[in-house]
């Protein structure tokens, strides 16, 4: 395989797919599939990617895809993984690609079951922080205070700590992804591929229509999420946390940009007061304190 900037050139998510302009999920998925390679079967529950896949009889993917009911993707992946073992195939990647609603809300039971049983599969949640496919309704992964069509005054809830939940399942590999850092995506997918058992990856997926920013700004928004520290790049291998990419240098608060720089790019946060922004900044700082604790416990 020839390489440009170290990235595989094969395209398994095809041109002309039905994603919105500037879709963060499609950018991540493109890199994810490059890293997995063609011996991959995707399992997709109801989500934006059900549409991105394109209508019958065509498909936007150069890998086989099983479309499945909203709550069912982790279970379908579990069954497929076991069937491949029964058939003596150990060269096929079973990969669930699900949205945040399909992961943190309706799909969490099947996900928890599959993770606890430890099937050999990769589960990737692409998190656009609301039910975008149905038109920007709040999910359990919507950040606090964000506007959605079902939280017109701002989300009164908090963003569910999905990584914490998956960490409690004692799975061998957990990582976060961000479309502004494709090398980081490729490295993490390659690592996930090489590890036996249940792997969980969580990708921040900026959504121009849902987050209310211009479709030319996806990468800027995504990068700003990392530089302000509201999205932290890391991996947890066998319980040991390691920061990756620019996040490696952001443990010191002084090195992080104020979260305001991220919020101000997006219309969904346009209504925030000064007090709101301070509260969100405090949440970001708290989440880094948790990271610092985990890094400290690594040493013990």
């Amino acid at each position, binding site marked *: 395989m020839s390489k440009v900037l170290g990235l595989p050139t094969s395209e398994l998510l095809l041109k002309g797919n039905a994603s919105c302009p500037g879709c963060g999920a499609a950018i991540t998925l493109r890199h994810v599939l490059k890293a997995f390679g063609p011996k991959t*079967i995707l399992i997709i529950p109801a989500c934006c990617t059900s549409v991105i896949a394109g209508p019958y009889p065509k498909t936007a993917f150069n890998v086989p895809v099983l479309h499945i009911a909203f709550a069912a993707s*982790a279970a379908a992946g579990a069954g497929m993984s076991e069937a491949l073992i*029964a058939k003596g195939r150990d060269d096929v990647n079973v990969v669930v690609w699900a949205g945040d609603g399909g992961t943190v809300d309706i799909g969490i039971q099947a996900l928890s079951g599959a993770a606890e049983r430890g099937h050999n599969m990769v589960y990737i949640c692409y998190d656009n922080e609301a039910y975008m496919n149905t038109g920007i309704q709040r999910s359990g992964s919507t950040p606090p205070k964000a506007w959605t069509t079902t939280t017109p005054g701002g989300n009164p809830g908090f963003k569910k700590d999905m990584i914490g939940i998956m960490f409690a399942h004692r799975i061998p590999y957990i990582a976060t992804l961000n479309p502004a850092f494709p090398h980081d995506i490729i490295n993490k997918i390659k690592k996930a591929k090489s590890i036996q058992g249940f792997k969980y990856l969580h990708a921040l997926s900026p959504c121009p229509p849902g987050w209310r920013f211009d479709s030319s700004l996806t990468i800027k928004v995504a990068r700003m999420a990392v530089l302000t520290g509201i999205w932290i790049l890391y991996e947890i291998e066998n319980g040991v946390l390691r920061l990756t990419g620019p996040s490696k240098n952001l443990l010191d608060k002084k090195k992080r940009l104020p979260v305001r720089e991220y919020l101000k790019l997006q219309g969904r946060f346009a209504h925030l007061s000064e007090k709101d922004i301070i509260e969100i900044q405090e949440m970001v700082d708290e989440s880094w304190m948790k990271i610092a604790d985990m890094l400290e416990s690594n040493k013990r």
Partner: protein
Amino acid sequence: MNEQNNIKMLTGNYAAAYAVKLSRVEVISAYPITPQTPIIEKLSEFVERGELNARFIRVESEHSAMASLIGAASVGARTYTATSAQGLLYMGEVVWWAAGARLPIVMGVVTRALAPPWSIWTDHTDILSFRDSGWIILFASNAQEVLDLTIQAFKIAENEKILLPVAVTWDAFVVSHTLEPVSIPEQRIIDEFLEKKRPQPHALNVDEPFSLGNITFPSDYMELRRSIDRAMKYAKEIIVSVDKEFGEKIGRKYGGLIEEYFINDADILIITLGVIGEEAKEAVDRLRKEDLRVGLIRLRSIRPFPSEILSKYCCDKKLCIVIERSVSFGGGGVILNDVLSTFYRYNVETPTIGYIAGLGGREVSVEDIVGMVSEACGRLKDGKLPNEPLWYGVKIGERYE
């Protein structure tokens, strides 16, 4: 012992487990529910002891049981699960998905009444609420038939012109937990009858990527739905031919879509299903001793519905009596409605009376069936045919209104 006559005392549930073992299922996925549990316990033993080389997934819900089998079957594995009542309903969304995806999954359904109020006893309303789902729905009436029909189900489901999931059902406790002598066929003979599972033509394969279940516009959706209906119609032939082949190879034949009992010279036909069909045979014997020419049709397939054969046998009778363990609230009896709609479409004018009996596991004895036949005959004689099904043996009084 002659292996051909390997008789064991088995419950209906254990008979199902033996059938799954003989069928060399590759992936089993199940969640426990009374009265299905002995099936999956026995299967766990087979797998742990290495007697069955299958992957056993102890899922966290019935929804995941079926979803995981969809994942497994989509890459071509032979798959099995079993459930009952609430479990089947909880599984509901993906039950339909399995049929729409044309995956030859086989499921045992130990029929049980739906709650509330809680009831663990037999009733057919659970499986019959999936009448329109695209699943082939077969009814066994004893442990031997559970074993035989479960093996046959794989052959029916995997037929390349069918490729639909099959539910094999039997009554809670009366069949599921009652020991009966069951003849277990030799593995060699079943291997011959049921060839090794080949991946279906639309099994997902990394060497030839395509998608299963993409969004489909109104311009194509109807054609895909019609193909299920056509497969279902074709299944009528295959259920009969598989029963015949099983009879030739293994020595037991049931009749395919229906089992007949004294129907040729009968004036009155009882139409029923499940374990009531066993009691009804005794009722027929008893009534014939009283010179009443009664016969029995035991429905073995509810989907596809045996319309042609049913109308052929019923058209020249004086009276048909449908006895069922199910109800469509405000709409009659589930089975009665199918029978009457068949009669109307096939110009059968035989007077027909429906009985709703045995809900929630209430016993339907030989005497009860004799009672229904006598009452129905009286109504026919008096010209008092009811427009609606009759509830047999229900207590009446202020308390129950």
